[in-house]
């Protein structure tokens, strides 16, 4: 059973378009993180959200943690080819020594 489901699984858009990636669960997480991964490399942390309802912005990326701390979203404004990659949400539960990853969203931004 996958605790964190991401949608969509694949997304191919044109440069300049906006997009939203969703990360949903039936479980409550003490914190949730978003990572971006490029081929042949390990994931790199983008942001951590801790408080229910929290919104964080990182340039053109906006992250939101659901009020009940069960879901999160990532919105990218005016996507660029450099945004291409695999986006992964991940959450800590309970004691915080196990990070569970979502199913991943593969984003491709074309010129």
């Amino acid at each position, binding site marked *: 059973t*996958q605790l*964190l489901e*991401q949608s969509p699984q694949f997304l191919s858009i044109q440069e300049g378009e906006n997009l939203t990636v969703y990360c949903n669960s039936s479980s409550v997480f*003490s*914190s949730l*993180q978003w990572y971006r991964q490029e081929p*042949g*490399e*390990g*994931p*790199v*942390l983008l942001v*951590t959200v801790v408080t229910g309802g929290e919104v964080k912005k990182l340039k053109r990326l906006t992250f939101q943690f659901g009020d009940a701390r069960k879901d999160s979203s990532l919105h990218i404004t005016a996507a660029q080819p450099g945004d291409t990659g*695999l986006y*992964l949400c*991940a959450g*800590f539960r309970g*004691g*915080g*020594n*196990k*990070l*569970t*990853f*979502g*199913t*991943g969203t*593969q984003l491709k931004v074309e010129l």
Partner: protein
Amino acid sequence: SQTIHQWPATLVQPVGSPLSLECTVEGTSNPNLYWYRQAAGRGLQLLFYSVGIGQISSEVPQNLSASRPQDRQFILSSKKLLLSDSGFYLCAWSRDNNSPLHFGNGTRLTVT
């Protein structure tokens, strides 16, 4: 600053052969250490994690084992590889519980 080293980058091994992947962290003490496996373009599956020397927690029953012989060294092993062990293996560390993970660049393992 902290760095994580994982090797080798790629590995091709025959079925039934042993495996040893090594991961070391520099610049920090008593980190949490993790081994993940990733299918192509998908999320990461947690295999093992360790909160201290000799302390290993296994997440899924499998053909693999892990050891932490030193504070900043984490080793993933197998006595006899299976075809299904092929995948992208990632080592990671975190400062403590609920802290972000920092990943190595992974090992692409192909079992033939």
